[in-house]
């Protein structure tokens, strides 16, 4: 009997496919998310848009919040550790969190090294803007990838850019001859064996979710249309007028992302979504997607 094997960790992410993972800040929100059909919740002290507004250093959440959320839902509970913060991650693992997010939404603790994720029994999800970043995280032991997008903006444009880039790079690698892969591994800064796997299978070795800017049911469906395996919704739900309705609508739009009539139906009278931010209005320091490498 083996725990924490790569198959067990990646398999856990496979079970999330076609689902919506929602950011929650307390037990009450977690219950709303579960009742709406979320496949997992991300327990946080503040959602990304509030982190933006608050400024300062954003850290791992208070364990009380995480335990409170774990107590009230039967679906998996995820939590975020700072990039490179091994101890925050170990603390979250000790609490029994089901999945860790080494996240650029929090202020990085290490500007050079990410966490050695193979050293954990619990699986990790990491953000990526391109194929190189995705494969580097997988080398370090990530069992799930998500686009970085631009968290807390309610603006889907960066998530679209990252998903499209990763997919076009995968297609390029797929069409290369085997002898070109060595140079491409060097260009991308990734391990050759992983690149060979992408070349042979035409996809990442782990599931790839969309995250960072999903604000409406149509946004979630767009990311599925672009090839995402599922969707993370951060500030989008609990910063909207009617979180319960919004959450249900996003779940249905994700499941039936090609059924446009249904998406129209669930989008009716949803109230105001979160107020978004135009990306060009963000200064370089405010762009979370540039954190990590």
């Amino acid at each position, binding site marked *: *009997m*083996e*725990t*924490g*094997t790569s*198959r*067990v960790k990646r*398999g*856990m992410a*496979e*079970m*999330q*496919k*076609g*689902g919506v993972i929602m950011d929650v800040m307390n037990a009450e929100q977690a219950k709303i998310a*579960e009742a709406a*059909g*979320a*496949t*997992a919740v991300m327990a946080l002290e503040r959602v990304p848009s509030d982190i933006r507004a608050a400024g300062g250093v954003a850290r791992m959440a208070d364990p009380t919040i995480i335990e409170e959320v774990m107590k009230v839902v*039967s*679906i*998996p509970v995820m939590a975020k550790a700072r990039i490179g913060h091994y101890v925050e991650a170990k603390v979250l*693992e000790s609490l*029994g*969190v*089901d*999945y860790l997010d080494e996240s650029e939404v929090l202020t990085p603790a290490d500007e050079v090294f990410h966490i050695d994720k193979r050293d954990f*029994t*619990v*699986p990790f999800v990491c953000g990526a803007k391109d194929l190189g970043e995705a494969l580097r995280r997988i080398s370090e032991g990530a069992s799930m990838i998500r686009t970085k997008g631009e968290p807390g903006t309610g603006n889907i444009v960066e998530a679209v850019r990252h998903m499209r880039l990763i997919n076009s790079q995968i297609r390029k690698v797929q069409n290369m001859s085997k002898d070109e892969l060595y140079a491409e591994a060097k260009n991308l800064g990734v391990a050759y064996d992983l690149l060979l796997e992408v070349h042979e299978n035409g996809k990442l070795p782990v599931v790839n979710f969309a995250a960072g800017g999903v604000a409406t049911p149509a946004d979630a469906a767009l990311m599925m249309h672009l090839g995402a395996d599922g969707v993370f919704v951060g500030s989008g739900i609990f910063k909207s007028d009617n979180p319960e309705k919004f959450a249900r609508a996003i*779940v*249905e739009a994700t*499941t*039936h992302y090609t059924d446009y009539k249904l998406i129209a139906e669930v989008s009716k009278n949803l109230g105001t979504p979160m107020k978004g931010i135009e990306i060009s209005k963000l200064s370089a320091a405010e762009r979370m997607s540039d954190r990590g490498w």
Partner: protein
Amino acid sequence: MKVGVLALQGAVAEHIRSIERAGAEGVAVKLPEQLSELDGLIIPGGESTTIGKLMRKYGFIEAIRAFAAQGHPVFGTCAGLIVMAKEIEGGEEPHLALMDIQVSRNAFGRQRESFETDLDVKGLTQPLRAVFIRAPLITAVGDQVDVLSTYKEEIVTARQGHLLVSSFHPELTDDCSLHAYFLEMIKSKAGAV
């Protein structure tokens, strides 16, 4: 032979791959109308609360019950096992309530307790590599239910006539022997009808 995989949420592609490896055609099922063209159905792993909710919403509860009542084999893995059970511990409303079993959700604990192991399954010639992810257990079975495998004396695979369930994920390995077993169930059913 055409076998559907309920595609509301969860590990659909992996089941389709295993079905095809075992020698049948696999189809993703998004709408109840699709059931009429199928010889058997797999309800995959995923989150049982999400799958249960979407099944209700899109009319799958009655449709799958009718499909099973016609004698078509149904195979549930992990979350699929939970939605097929007549009784779910902890007071959760049963979903399809097809099979005379009682289940306990997340019976091994949280994700850090998830594991893989070799398992002997009645009816298979070789032990199977079984991947348990936040897996449920069968805590009680009715008279008509045949126990096919146990792990530490707990029931993890069972069959009741044309219904098959496993608490682990046979679709996450390259071994398609349990899928082949399910295809045999479909073939023998077709012969019997």
